[in-house]
């Protein structure tokens, strides 16, 4: 596959300062088509800040974020509002689940369709044929997504009443509703039991294979990361300290030191 090597997301020398604190220090990273890339590192390494820069929640101090959508010209998305980043095809989930609690599971997913639908206020009030068609399409697509993540049975429950693991899956479904080319998952397995983690592991691989969506994920669960990632980036104190295949990362002395402290080989 020649397409395999094509870069989808290219981050160059990304730096993010909060006052005097440099949370992310010239990190370079790329994700290619059809890849699962993991970003790991100890707590406070700047992984989530990196995510927030890429998805437009923060405006990076320096560096470039380039998106190469299929059949479209490259876009530099620094300083884009989050909704425009999402419209570019980059959808994310959150470390601490951020669902719309008092909306139903289905409605949560339907929000994801917002940026792919166009009915405006006048259209909504008149509720013409086109508006109804679009609404119906939104419903169908959302149901289909719920089926994929196994939540159809909960479609009309309030999101806040879902069990924890299901809430995580709902976040993924909601992000997928935006028709992304790249899915950014921030600690999708946090707080899950081993059984749920395994199911998630399968879900992520299935999304990559069947939906043709590339994935960039932050994760602490090493087993999951080693199992599914094609490449891994390691961050510590805002800097990228290593990059490579799971095998390379496993044996990288710098990574071992970062995780276990100096003299880690004693442990």
């Amino acid at each position, binding site marked *: 596959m020649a397409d395999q090597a094509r870069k989808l997301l290219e981050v160059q020398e990304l730096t993010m300062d909060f006052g005097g604190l440099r949370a992310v220090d010239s990190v370079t990273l790329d994700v290619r088509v059809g890849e699962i890339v993991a970003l790991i590192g100890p707590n406070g390494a700047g992984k989530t800040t990196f995510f927030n820069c890429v*998805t437009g*929640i923060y405006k990076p101090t320096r560096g470039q974020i380039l998106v190469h959508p299929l059949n479209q010209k490259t876009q530099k998305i620094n300083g884009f*509002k*989050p*909704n425009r980043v*999402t*419209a570019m095809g980059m*959808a*994310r989930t*959150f470390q601490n689940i*951020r*669902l*719309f*609690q*008092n*909306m*139903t599971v*289905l*409605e949560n997913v*339907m*929000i*994801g*369709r*917002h*940026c*792919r*639908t166009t*009915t*405006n*206020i006048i259209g*909504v*009030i008149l*509720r013409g044929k086109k*508006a109804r068609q*679009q*609404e*119906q399409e*939104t*419903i*169908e697509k959302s*149901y289909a997504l719920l089926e994929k993540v196994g939540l159809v049975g909960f*479609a*009309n*429950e*309030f999101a806040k*009443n879902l069990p924890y693991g299901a809430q995580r899956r709902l976040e993924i479904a*909601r*992000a997928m*509703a*935006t028709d992304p080319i790249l899915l950014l998952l921030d600690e999708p397995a946090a707080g899950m039991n081993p059984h749920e983690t395994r199911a998630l592991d399968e879900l992520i691989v299935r999304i990559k294979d069947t939906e043709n969506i590339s994935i960039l994920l932050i994760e602490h669960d090493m087993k999951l990361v080693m199992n599914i990632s094609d490449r891994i980036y390691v961050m510590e104190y805002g800097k990228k300290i290593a990059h490579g295949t799971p095998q390379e990362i496993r044996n990288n002395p710098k990574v071992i030191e970062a995780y276990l402290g100096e003299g880690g080989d004693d442990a």
Partner: protein
Amino acid sequence: MSMISYLKSSLIAAVWFVFLTLPLMAVKVNTLKGTVEWRWLNLLWVGMATFILSAVWRWAMERRQMGSADAASDETEATRKVGLGQRLLEDPKLNRPIIGVVVVIALLMPWVSEMYQVTIWVFALIYVVLGLGLNITVGLAGLLDLGYVAFFGVGAYTYAILNTRFGLDFWVCLPIGGLTGALVGVLLGFPILRLRGDYLAIVTLGFGSIAKIVYENWEEVFNGAKGIEKISRPGFFGVQMDIDAATTFTYYLMLALVVFTIFITNRLKDSRIGRAWMALREDEIACVAMGVDMARTKLSAYALGAFWAGLVGVIFASQTTYINPASFDFMLSAIVLSIVVLGGMGSIVGVVIAALVLNLLPEYLRAFEDYRMLVFGAVMVLMMLFRPQGLISNVRKTYAHRKVEAEDVHG
């Protein structure tokens, strides 16, 4: 808690209260004669009243706690249990006759009651539309707006000025008033896009006050504290109407407007736009990250909320034929906001009921006028304790899909 312990703790409360009020209620010093009068009977009343109130209060609190414990222990059961309110709304067998009765009463009202009553109802209906409008901004989009009265004033003054100075007709001014309200809503919306929660409330509160001060002090345009008089009542194809007929006409006009508002807000609520508003209310960051344009969504919520205020502002001015800045003070914002909160944020039926109750009850309980604010406050506190979600809580919307929907379309 057992019955005995209720009674015991209530008894203690009663004794304590009797002790506290002893100097106030029982002892009466006659300064002329230099004697002390002891009114023991008063203490008996205080004790009994405290005892009963305390027992009822404890019982209610207990019940509430048991209710929430049930909900926590059996989540799915609690969510399946549909409240009476929701059942009345959703079951066509129940709600058709109710709607029928309401419509008949509403249509016949002006013919069976005096003009005074009709006027009261016109104002009540004005509040219904105001509540429904604010419900978009506060209930759906979650943008706490304490200066809603400003938009109402904008509509009223727009009509007053256009009518008295330029002789424009009511029917021309009605949409202009609404659109001016919406425009001012957008203008206000821009600077406060970044604010949320308390800060937003403070700024909108300030905006409401600023609007009133502008009406008061900009003599050339708004005629200052004197207000604007001789505003025309709504005409009907040039038919001459006396005050009675005009009021009845305004009543029907308001009735039609209420139906229209309910229709539009209902459509907005169950749509792409309405869902974006609700998502914004639930979680702003997640909402934006899911591709919703925050600026546009917030501004549209402000504009549509303000539109209805502007629209009924025009009708208000035409009904009273005289407006001055005093009509547009903070109390009105506060009442409309309480309508939304009492009715249940985001619930259309709840807001309609709350608006009618809050406006009509004081009118029909004139005998207890002195205690109006006291009762109002007590009701608010009780509502917040026992039913914080409002009279009718947010009803879950279900969406039909595939075959189900296809049948609906054909059938």
